[in-house]
């Protein structure tokens, strides 16, 4: 059996801001390396999930192996490890980066460096990866590669003069990128005879094979029959198959050795056993210590997920378990709501992540869901000296038992063109931002730095930012700690009953405005019932806002002749269907979308 020479392997990733052309370049690389014919090419081979394609973003880390005959006459194996491109998925990005030996940075020749470009580059540099810039979209008339190169050198501080200027769309100069990969990115190192040490950077569930783990072997080797152990979770299984990633398919092989990227299957059914970032070792000959960097991902945003049809609770649990398998950042535990019945409190990385989870549950598992208001994790300091994490507003102790509360604060970097600096600063002020400073990147762009409470940015901050900067501003943030804050629980009462699923924690000074807005929104969302329905917002026992949904007065089909009956019946059936999409809360029917819709504060 011939083992592959480590010096002929290149493990790399492509990092970029959203829409700068990462996926297109990946497609082009796969095409140029001849792994697939043009006819076989789907437009974005790596993004094989329907949802990803629709959104045009890459959600899950995945890998592909291609074979490239370089200009030096040698055959190279290129393992391209794809990374998610959104700030919500920073941990997954970091694990993917840890599996690489170098990174290609794609920068849009018309847009230049953006906030997330910086975020990703710094993340890569943190992993001691060499970053090689590529200037993309030079086919566009407004492309200005020289300016962008200067920007990269000035802002990021990496060498960009020799960066290939390409068009991933037309394929122009893509060979230069391939040569760059072969010539500049270091070959993997690592002792193939040492005890097995492999990094899990992804895992997917397959109905036939069980869990398929994506690994980068750092040291040692793994083959069929090896008893492997996941060092963090402690799970031990015998390997059934190892192999490579073709484009969209698994290609079995005999052995994965140090330096290689591939997959392992081991009949793993235990869904929580294979966590991204964990180290795989040989149970009989374990390595001394696990790879650094593993952390059990801590969700930043929590919300309630309930099946619309309460009988579907077990199906929702199964679906969440399966999703969790592919998504180590998803956390869930059972919870009960007086309004919504049995469901789950789900923790996720951010609102985009939550949105994706919700949509996947609805599409892939055909579940209809009711989602409650997202909440961050608050620290509640009780008068008895204990501190607890609060993920569900309903669990807030009585105010008399609370000494004080803390909320998570992020450091936000907002990149914005200078003409919008004023309006973006105003937005940050409105959201209780603490101004830290501003850097001018060049004559037209600045980067604003703020401390912002996380709960001010999880709902709609991103939308507001885009609308106030005509889409030009970009945002990167990370949680930097907790800060004491005056927080209160805002309760919503519908027909005099508190709807627990609508309670949320809010900054005390904003409670009045938020309460009024919520009532107004709910009034629009709740259809007329058979009686007047008061909607109230309350802090403690104090009502701070009120609206009323007037009772339904008239709903009758006047005409009804013989031949009409079928049609009238259809109209009634349609009306009844509409009723099914409602959630009975006390004696009031609330449309399921209302729980989420009322949270969206209109930007105007």
């Amino acid at each position: 059996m011939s083992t592959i020479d480590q010096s002929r392997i290149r493990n790399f990733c492509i990092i970029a801001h959203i829409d700068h052309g990462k996926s297109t370049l990946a497609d082009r690389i796969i095409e140029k390396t001849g792994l697939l014919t043009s006819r076989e090419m789907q437009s974005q081979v790596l993004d094989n999930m329907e949802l990803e394609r629709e959104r045009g973003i890459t959600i899950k880390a995945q890998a592909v192996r291609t074979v490239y005959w370089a200009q030096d006459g040698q055959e190279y194996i290129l393992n391209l490890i794809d990374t998610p491109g959104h700030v919500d998925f920073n941990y997954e990005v970091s694990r993917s980066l840890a599996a690489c030996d170098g990174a290609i940075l794609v920068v849009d020749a018309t847009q230049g460096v953006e906030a997330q470009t910086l975020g990703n580059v710094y993340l890569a540099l943190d992993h001691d990866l060499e970053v090689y810039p590529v200037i993309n979209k030079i086919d566009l008339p407004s492309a200005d590669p020289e300016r962008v190169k200067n920007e990269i050198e000035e802002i990021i501080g990496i060498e960009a003069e020799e960066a290939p200027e390409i068009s991933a769309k037309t394929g122009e100069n893509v060979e230069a990128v391939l040569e760059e990969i072969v010539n500049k990115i270091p070959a993997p190192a690592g002792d193939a005879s040492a005890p097995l040490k492999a990094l899990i950077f992804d895992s997917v569930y397959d109905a036939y094979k069980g869990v398929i783990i994506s690994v980068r072997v750092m040291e040692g080797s793994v083959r069929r029959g090896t008893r492997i152990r996941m060092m963090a979770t402690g799970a031990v299984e015998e390997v059934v198959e190892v192999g490579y990633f073709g484009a969209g398919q698994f290609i079995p092989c005999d052995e994965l050795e140090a330096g290689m990227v591939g997959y392992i299957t081991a009949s793993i059914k235990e869904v929580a056993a294979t966590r991204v970032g964990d180290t795989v070792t040989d149970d009989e000959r374990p390595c001394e210590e696990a790879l650094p960097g593993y952390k059990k991902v801590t969700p930043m945003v929590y919300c309630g997920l309930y099946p619309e049809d309460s009988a579907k609770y077990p199906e929702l649990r199964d679906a969440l378990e399966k999703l969790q398998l592919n998504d180590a950042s998803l956390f869930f535990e059972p919870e009960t709501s007086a309004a919504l019945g049995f469901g789950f409190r789900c923790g996720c990385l951010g609102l985009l992540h939550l949105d994706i989870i919700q949509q996947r549950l609805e599409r892939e598992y055909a579940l209809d869901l009711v989602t409650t208001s997202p909440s961050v994790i608050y620290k509640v300091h009780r008068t008895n000296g204990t501190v607890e994490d609060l993920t569900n507003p309903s669990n807030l102790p009585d105010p008399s038992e609370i000494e004080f509360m803390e909320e998570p604060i992020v450091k936000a970097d907002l990149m914005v063109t200078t003409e919008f600096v004023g309006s973006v600063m105003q937005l940050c002020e409105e959201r209780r931002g603490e101004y830290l400073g501003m850097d001018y990147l060049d004559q037209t762009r600045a980067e604003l730095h703020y401390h912002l409470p996380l709960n001010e940015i999880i709902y709609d901050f991103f939308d507001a930012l885009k609308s106030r900067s005509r889409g030009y501003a970009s945002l990167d943030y990370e949680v930097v700690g907790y800060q004491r804050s005056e927080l209160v629980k805002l309760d919503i009462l519908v027909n005099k009953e508190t709807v627990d699923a609508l309670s949320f924690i809010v900054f005390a000074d904003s409670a009045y405005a938020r309460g009024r807005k919520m009532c107004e929104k709910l009034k629009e969302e709740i259809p007329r019932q058979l009686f007047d329905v008061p909607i109230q917002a309350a802090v403690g026992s104090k009502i701070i806002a009120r609206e009323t949904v007037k009772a339904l007065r008239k709903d009758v089909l006047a005409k009804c002749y013989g031949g009409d009956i079928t049609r009238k019946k259809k109209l009634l059936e349609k009306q009844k269907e509409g009723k099914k999409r409602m959630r009975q809360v006390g004696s009031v029917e609330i449309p399921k979308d209302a729980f989420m819709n009322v949270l969206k504060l209109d930007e105007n």
Partner: protein
Amino acid sequence: MRSKMIEYSDFEIYIHIPFCVRKCGYCDFLSFPAGQDVQTRYMEALKREIRLTGEMLRRQAKTVFSVFIGGGTPSVPEEGQIAGIMQELHEQFSILPDAEITIEANPGTVDLSKLRSFRSAGINRISIGCQSMHDSELVRMGRIHDRAAFLESYELARKAGFDNINLDLISALPGQSLQSWRETLHAAAALEPEHISAYSLILEEGTPFFEQRDTLQLPDEDTEREMYEETAEILSQYGFQQYELSNYAKPGRVCRHNLGYWTGVPYLGMGLGAASYWPAEPAGADREEQEKTWMVRFRKTADLKSYLHLLSEDETAQIPEESDSYELLGKTGCMAEFMILGLRLTDGVSRKEFRRRFQNDLQDIYGGILQKYAAAGLLHNGEDRVFLTRRGRSLANVVMMEFL
């Protein structure tokens, strides 16, 4: 016919005449203007359909207690055409001597001679499309007549000998005020017709009004409800009793034909697009099978060309049915319709009648729903009868959809 029809006596007949002078803004019935030639051929085809249907039911006594000639505007065809249809009906069915035989007519399409010919053909009830007593509202609706033309037609109908007249009125019209609706009601009732149908305007898809819905100045929901509630009050001052959601009659003058629809009586519809409701052929011997096949509803083709194929020389020409209209109703479906239609009536449904028809107790089948809406004040859940309260009548859909 899809399957051979089983024999049944005591039913009613609906005849559809799809022609009108011009389509009104709100109208979603199957109707259109047509030339004399097409009308004549249609009448011939209709007669042939009546004959074929009669022959199919030949072997049994077929007693018909009500005939309704609707449209469209059945008063559009030339004099003598309707008499021809009536003659064919009498030849094929045994229409009871005291049967209610109604024709719809619109002002501007009748003269004394035509009205007299209806009477002499045995038609004893006429339903006149008055709709409004305000010329401005009539114009907005796209009606072909004004108030004066209506009044003239009404007088002519009396003169021709009609002693059972219905007036159709429409509330919640674009631009209509509560006051103008009151005026229409008073003016119509003062003429002392035997029956008034007062419908609230519904914007049906495919009508001109539906297309203009954003610019139509429709009364708001509260005004609409007031119009509805005042209708019963005003008409009662003139001796009209409400007996159905939209129908009011002088004592002993309820419309037997429509009452048949609301109480689940079988009917045969003939003519373009006409619907029929007929006992289904039992599917099998055991009870479970039989309960799946109680009644069947089907519709004739709505395509004039296919319908006129009845006239071809082809002796085997079939009565053209709408291919997707065949609706088989099981016992459960019939029970639901019994409730939905029965609750339209002011008297509601009788527990005894329910038990007689379905061999089940109303309470066992729908007890929960009845209790729920009785508690909400929409329904009177009596020992003998169940009916909508005054408030329930305004919110009938809320209750009715529960039975589906």
